[in-house]
């Protein structure tokens, strides 16, 4: 969907309160937003769907603040990141960070998620297990660049981190992942 079309739909929602236009936006962008959140939760489908729903509801109530300087998907991803960040903070407040459950792939989530994607189950498990070796910020930067294809300045905009910090997270994350993949024979 082109940016002009997105802006036309956003205008339809904000000016004419056209819910069908928002429905079109949700259907168009649900996949990348849920994929991003699945990577952050490492395959916990129930949690990522709750967060994705929260993302779209926040997008709806703040739609008039979308300036159109970036793509609508980038704006949505920024909201999704903020929703994820708030969730992590609230969970960390509840649980001691050593016992924080988000960093560990949930067997329940993995099992449920297998019905959802057009990706082989073993590949998915490999992906989330590999991502589990990274810290939260590293995982976010790595998935935004290597899965969603964002440039460093876009990642900095989405996460509100300085570009230098994003580069550091990417460097450390890539080193860790490459080591992990070599140790597990992915380079053969």
């Amino acid at each position, binding site marked *: 969907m082109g940016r002009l079309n997105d802006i036309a739909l956003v205008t339809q929602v904000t000016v004419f309160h056209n819910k069908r236009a928002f429905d079109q936006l*949700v259907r168009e962008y649900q996949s990348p937003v849920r994929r991003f959140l699945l990577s952050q939760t490492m395959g916990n489908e129930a949690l990522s769907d709750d967060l994705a*729903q929260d993302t779209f509801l926040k997008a709806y109530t703040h739609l008039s603040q979308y300036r159109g300087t970036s793509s609508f998907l980038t704006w949505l991803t920024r909201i999704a990141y903020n929703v994820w960040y708030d969730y992590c903070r609230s969970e960390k407040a509840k649980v001691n960070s050593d016992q924080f459950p988000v960093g560990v792939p949930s067997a329940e989530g993995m099992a449920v998620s297998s019905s959802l994607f*057009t990706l082989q189950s073993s590949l998915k498990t490999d992906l989330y297990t590999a991502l589990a070796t990274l810290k939260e910020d590293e995982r976010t930067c790595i998935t935004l660049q290597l899965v969603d294809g964002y440039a460093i300045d876009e990642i900095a905009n989405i996460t*509100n981190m300085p570009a230098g910090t994003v580069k550091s997270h990417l460097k450390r994350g890539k080193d860790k992942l490459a080591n992990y993949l070599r140790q597990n024979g992915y380079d053969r």
Partner: protein
Amino acid sequence: MTDDQLLEKFFQTARQMEVADNGFSDRVMQHIPNERTLKLSRMWTAFCIFVAVVLFVVFRGWDIIVYGLVMMVNTPPTSQQLLTFVASIGVIGLLMLYEVIGRERYSAL
């Protein structure tokens, strides 16, 4: 194989991953607040502000503020009062900062 090539190969499949809708969009649309609720919420906020302003004028709220300020200037404050004052200003400042950051999170792009 270089690290970049290895990562590129590993994430190639993940890039093509499409998440099936499976009723997700419908669930989102069911939770969208309707315009009437939003309008009522805005009207209620406006009404509360209006009532606060009217009460402030009717009860000459500025008299209380001036009296409080004069008392504060004329009476040397105890350390506990000073601490309470600083804490109050701190809380107000934090709330304002939170509001500004909250707005910035949605309007920066």
